[in-house]
């Protein structure tokens, strides 16, 4: 045979027996490192901001008095003992959000690396060769464990660094134990993702099931902490176990037992189930036959709506729920802020409203991050259509690339605007139900105020899609993580303005605490449009890039 007939050269860089372990380790540790950096920065920021905001013992005592016995905040964010200490405050401030973030990371990474890789057909070659589904799953779990370890190491490092400050004073041992508590949910939900990955028909379905499990865990813990005499329920939820670990307050290492056992059992079950199913399908039968629903399928835009609808509805629900929760706690949280140095800071920035509005101003930063995530998701979904080759089906028909991209972007903008309105309206509803004294106009505008940063993320995504399509996802999510990191670390106060300016969230006014900055928003929208315009031109001029 002449040389051009010989098949592709095999790249046998690793022994086929361990290639899955290597691949997952690489992917999981990378992602663990990014999230670990965010975890570490959050811990440092919380600890340091406490020492600068609550300097006097009196201010610390009043904070503890306000939150320590507040059932609303306890139900939402967990119990808050020892708020008059740096350690206690830090555990309360970041505890619940890191716990939830860790769980989300675990279920997304778990389903992506176990099931997503398989759905893309990347395992088929390996499984036809030197390994079995069970062994491959076990190897992938080893890789995921490495990712959790990296997450823990970085979180612990951040806590140790913060703890060494004289004003903070957290011992290294306590710091490591605290970090362990913060990544415990990640480990458990890697396991949940692994098991649902064996049961569900697709990666997306597996992620949705795991997210439901997380929602139930949160709800159970919420009831347990709501002060209605059902505290025993805390043992029925993995999030409750982590709470019982009592990191930085009253350590109870015994609560590690259920965490570790459940993780190990889930991993074992996943490995066992992996051997019982066919590649590319779940154990729970998928409805493969379906009556045609062609209502939306009259064009590319309708198709995009149909394809992204489940994800978008999920995000809208999450954003509306978060807004509602923030609204619900705004009043009680606001009463502790009024008169404190936090309120002073906002007043100096031009805050005109109540303490509740000041609190919402901080909370809306979290919502801004969520809305920006929606933008990133919309963009990477569009790129996914191209990289998978599915876009070929549309662009080989009478549809121009720019018209397709324009349709996707139009839908994305609409999705973001609705997300902003939902955030504002739900936060107002929550706050109004508590008679928090917030102005409906100010809060709804604050919701819309979340859209411009998301548009910048979208515009940046289009630019990368046009110029370096294969880097789209990395750049968009990387920039989001960076922006988040900068504002979180920026809260410490020693960051240079030049660095702060690179974060898109830094340019968003902290509404409703302060009035919406229309000038900055106009600039952001213009920047987004400019980036998207250049990106669209580049997209039109370049080759279609299938991964």
């Amino acid at each position, binding site marked *: 045979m002449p040389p051009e007939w010989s098949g592709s050269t095999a790249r046998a860089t690793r022994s086929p027996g361990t290639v899955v372990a290597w691949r997952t380790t690489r992917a999981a540790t990378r992602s663990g490192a990014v999230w670990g950096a965010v975890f570490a920065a959050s811990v440092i920021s919380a600890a340091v901001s406490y020492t600068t905001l609550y300097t006097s013992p009196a201010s610390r005592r009043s904070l503890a008095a306000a939150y320590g016995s507040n059932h609303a905040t306890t139900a939402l964010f967990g119990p808050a003992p020892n708020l008059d200490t740096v350690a206690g405050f830090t555990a309360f401030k970041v505890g619940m959000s890191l716990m939830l973030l860790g769980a989300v990371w675990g279920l997304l990474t778990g389903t992506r690396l176990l099931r997503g890789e398989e759905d893309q057909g990347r395992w088929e070659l390996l499984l036809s060769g030197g390994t079995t589904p069970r062994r491959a799953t076990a190897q992938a779990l080893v890789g995921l464990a490495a990712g959790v370890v990296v997450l823990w190491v970085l979180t612990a490092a951040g806590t140790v660094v913060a703890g060494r400050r004289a004003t903070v004073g957290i011992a290294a041992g306590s710091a490591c134990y605290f970090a362990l508590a913060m990544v415990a949910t990640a480990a458990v939900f890697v396991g949940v993702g692994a098991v649902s990955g064996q049961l569900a028909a697709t990666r997306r379905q597996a992620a949705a099931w795991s997210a439901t499990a997380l929602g139930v865990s949160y709800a159970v813990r919420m009831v347990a902490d709501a002060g209605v005499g059902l505290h025993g329920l805390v043992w029925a939820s993995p999030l409750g176990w982590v709470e019982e670990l009592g990191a930085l307050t009253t350590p109870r290492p015994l609560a590690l037992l259920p965490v570790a056992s459940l993780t190990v059992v889930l991993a074992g079950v996943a490995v066992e189930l992996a051997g019982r199913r066919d590649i590319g399908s779940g154990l729970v039968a998928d409805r493969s036959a379906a009556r045609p629903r062609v209502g939306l399928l009259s064009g590319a835009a309708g198709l995009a709506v149909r394809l992204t609808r489940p994800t978008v509805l999920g995000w809208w629900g999450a954003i509306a729920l978060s807004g509602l929760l923030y609204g619900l706690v705004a009043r009680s949280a606001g009463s502790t802020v009024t008169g404190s140095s936090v309120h002073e800071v906002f007043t100096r920035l031009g805050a005109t409203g109540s303490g509740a509005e000041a609190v919402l101003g901080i909370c809306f930063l979290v919502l801004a991050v969520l809305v920006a995530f929606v933008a990133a998701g919309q963009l990477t979904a569009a790129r996914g259509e191209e990289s*998978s080759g599915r876009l070929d*089906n549309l662009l080989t028909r009478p549809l121009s690339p720019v018209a397709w991209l324009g349709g996707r972007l139009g839908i994305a903008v609409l999705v973001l605007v609705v997300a902003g309105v939902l955030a504002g309206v739900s936060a107002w509803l929550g706050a109004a139900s508590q008679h928090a004294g917030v102005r409906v106009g100010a809060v709804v505008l604050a919701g819309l105020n979340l859209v411009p940063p998301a548009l910048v993320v979208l515009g940046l995504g289009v630019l990368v899609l046009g110029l370096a399509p294969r880097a789209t996802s990395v750049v968009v999510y990387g920039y989001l993580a960076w922006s988040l990191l900068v504002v979180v670390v920026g809260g410490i106060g020693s960051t240079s303005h030049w660095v702060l300016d690179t974060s898109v969230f830094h340019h968003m006014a902290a509404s409703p605490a302060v009035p919406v900055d229309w000038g900055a928003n106009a600039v952001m929208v213009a920047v987004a449009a400019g980036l998207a315009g250049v990106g669209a031109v580049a997209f039109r001029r370049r*080759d279609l890039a299938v991964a």
Partner: protein
Amino acid sequence: MGNDDTPAIRTRGLTKRYRGTDALVDLDLDVGPGEVVGYLGPNGAGKTTTVRLLLGLIRATSGTAEVFGLDCRRDAVAAHRRLAYVGGDTSLWPGLTGAETLHLLGRVQGRVDDAYRDELVERFDFDPGVKVRAYSKGNRQKLVLIAALMTRADLLVLDEPTAGLDPLMERAFRLSVREASDRGQTVFLSSHILSEVEALCDRVGILRGGRLVEMGTLAELRHLSALTVEVTFVGAVPDLSTVPGVTSVAVDGPVVRCQVHGPVEALLRVLADAGVSALLSREPSLEELFLARYGGDTGPDPTVAGDTDDAA
């Protein structure tokens, strides 16, 4: 439809280079309206690159490509109104059913012959009520084929369209292409299934290393290659290796096999003088032509002859 003499496909100096490697070099290709043209080449020869250039999915490094006089890149939308494309390894939306996919692709195309679609669904024995995720590769390929054929487009651009089809479906495919051709549709069939091209195509182009090395009717191409001759002698076996045009002489007792390039007159004269009890001659199959093109310096080996042996 339209100007009957506008070529369906016309490329001049069409070249595509990727980071220093030449995927396609200086392609001059003409496909007339109503023609069925085969496009052959081994993996990596540049077939798919050509197709993607014709579809305007990628940009030419230099040269021009037109479909019905429309620039493949600048006027892609107008060109796509007149063509339909089938790829060999098409990704579809896993959550959509076959029927939903056909509906969507028909609406995006803007032109569907509904009756013909139903006929094709029947012919290809295709169940449209199932989600794409659950289809086998062959069923997915049927779906893509039906989506293209149902448009009755003036030009069918087919890139390895029968990948994954069983012989029955391969037959249904050939029937559909002949139907299209009878209706005056133009077909550009890129393939490495030689019997398919041989059965369907008026003209054949052969691509090698990004260059079009041969283009002509099958008859023309055959003349470029050798005729295989097998002679059984009654008496003494004469030395044929000195006869002009004769090569690859193999003697097996009274049986001699050889190849003849060009006119066979000289060989016939030698054979007439010797006692011949049997004479077989066979034109090269497309497979042999193809192997001759790619098989290095050795000529076609009669043992690889396919199912096209003709006694002469």
